[in-house]
């Protein structure tokens, strides 16, 4: 007999799916055993399709891009952009992406972890604090290009004296705002995973809240926070849309402003922006070049992700 307490708690009332029907139908025929396997295969197929897409994508990119890299070698990485595919390189993209990344790190991590600490450790369950949490969740769902508008109005125009206008600083700040909600959410999860017994133990010996957080909660949550931060950075590396509104250039620089400091103070670009630019070029030779640039980008991303996984595994076994 079905006990109401077991099935009644979570099952939404959908006609025809009460337990007795289930039992009757299930007991009715052995043919359902085949059905079970078929379903399992179908479901597995969906995962295989996802895997297959990934393989085809990487394969296609590899086929087009590897010859270019073989042919050009490190020259590809060290030359600047050009209208001629055979002379174009990703140097400016790499420099720009690096500079953006540093700015994102400086701003998004402290602000994000700090907000998470407040939400998880200090905030009482009041309406204001629930509003904060909902707000963060909403921000995480805002399309990244809308953040570009914020970047344009606030960082490029309003804060022009500080950022210099259409510079990599504005770009970096914009990206920082894009990834901030994600940092807050992942850090919150890491903090929540710390067992409450540790906090009680800390309070029990007469520690203040900050002392408990600093000495026990943050160290425990550090691996999770760190992993979340790295994955966030990976996301920031791949972002393009908001940068288009805050000055990332698609076109070609004058030979002067190319180096590290040049891009810091003036026009800049990023690796994904270059990829976007090249993929829309009518010249078919750019297609293989784009693939090569994608390989560079994916290599960077895979390294970052691998680092995150390795670090996570290493720290999870600590105590």
């Amino acid at each position, binding site marked *: 007999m079905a006990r109401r307490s077991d099935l009644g708690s979570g099952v939404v009332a959908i006609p025809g799916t009460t337990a007795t029907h289930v*039992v009757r139908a299930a007991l009715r025929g052995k043919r359902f055993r085949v059905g079970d396997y078929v379903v399992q295969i179908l479901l597995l197929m969906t995962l295989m399709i996802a895997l297959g*897409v*990934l393989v085809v994508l990487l394969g296609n990119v590899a086929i087009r891009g590897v010859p270019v890299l073989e042919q050009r070698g490190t020259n590809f990485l060290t030359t600047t952009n050009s209208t001629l595919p055979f002379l174009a390189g990703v140097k400016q993209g790499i420099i720009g992406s690096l500079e953006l990344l540093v700015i994102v790190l400086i701003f998004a991590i402290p602000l994000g972890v700090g907000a998470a600490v407040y939400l998880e450790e200090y905030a009482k369950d009041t309406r204001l604090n629930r509003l904060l949490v909902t707000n963060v969740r909403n921000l995480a769902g805002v399309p990244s290009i809308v*953040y570009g508008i914020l970047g344009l109005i606030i960082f490029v125009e309003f804060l022009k004296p500080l950022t210099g206008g259409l510079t990599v600083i504005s770009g970096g700040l914009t990206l920082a705002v894009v990834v901030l909600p994600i940092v807050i959410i992942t850090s919150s999860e890491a903090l929540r995973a710390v067992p409450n017994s540790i906090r009680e133990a800390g309070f029990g010996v007469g520690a203040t809240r900050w002392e408990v957080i600093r000495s026990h909660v943050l160290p425990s949550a550090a691996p999770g926070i760190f992993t979340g931060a790295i994955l966030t950075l990976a*996301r920031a590396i791949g972002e393009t849309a908001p940068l*288009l509104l805050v000055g990332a250039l698609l076109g070609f620089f004058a030979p002067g402003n190319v180096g590290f400091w040049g891009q810091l103070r003036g026009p800049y670009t990023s690796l994904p922006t270059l990829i976007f630019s090249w993929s829309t070029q009518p010249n078919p030779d750019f297609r293989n070049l784009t693939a090569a640039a994608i390989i560079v980008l994916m290599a960077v*991303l895979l390294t970052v992700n691998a680092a995150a996984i390795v670090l996570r595994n290493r720290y999870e076994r600590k105590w």
Partner: protein
Amino acid sequence: MAQVAIAAPKRLTAADLAGSARRRRKERAIRIAFLSAAGFSILVSALIVVSLLGKAVQFLTLVHPAQLLAGGWFPRQGDFGISTLLAGTLIVSAIAMLVATPLGLGAAIYLSEYARPRARRTLKPILETLAGVPSVVMGFFALNVISPRLIQALFGRATSIFSLAAAGIGVGILVTPLVASVAEDAMFAVPRTLREAAYGLGAKKRVTSLRVVFPAAISGIVAALILGVSRAIGETMVVAIAAGATGGALFTLNPLHYGQTMTTAMSSLAIGSDAVGGNSAAAAFPSLFFVGLVLFALTLLLNAAANRFVRRVRRRY
């Protein structure tokens, strides 16, 4: 053994229990610092609205209402048919969800109900890797592989290389991991006791997973789909690369046609150069903000709806 004295006088005063004022002041300052960090997120929300509103309103003052009903979106010519962009967004998102729903939910059900721990450990990272593919890469893939090998193969070489359909499929692949992950969390949250009750009644795995666990997790699954739609609507680069139409687009409901969505209309305006003079051109750039406002409002509504469904899941368990 070292002799350590215990300080425990028989009678205390309140001053003895007052603690260190310095320590308390430090605590207060630190608390305020953390509160500011949290408050910054509210500031961001406010700034988004402020940034959008100013020029969006300006746009509306510059255009004649009739322009908004134009049959196409050609901002530099003064055609601001918002319905064109809405249609484009709708087509891309619909196709994206046609891809992401079966793939995402299928993967979620498999991972949550069928996969053995070893399989799960190898398959989940695959999904996570797919989630990490940058959208420009997916755009390249959509233009150079999906479009020729799928769309043109199916519908003939006469169709355009740029199509909303190719972009839609690309977006769908990008959204799949999000749908899969949220749906899987929802199904994972269904208590074991529910499954065991069904097995105890003699139900097979397929029956249990489809007719017991799935309906029990329905709130979370709906949330996953809504979040998927929201993400699909907000996607820019895949559509920018694969759907063409940088100067503008005609209203079309044909997915095989090139077109623009709200997001690519914005990106086109951002990177384009204004060559045409005249009053219409003055309204061109501000239209970026107007479209942004509509986009922001739309995704906000969707996310709020999704959150309500997520809260229903939490309350249940």
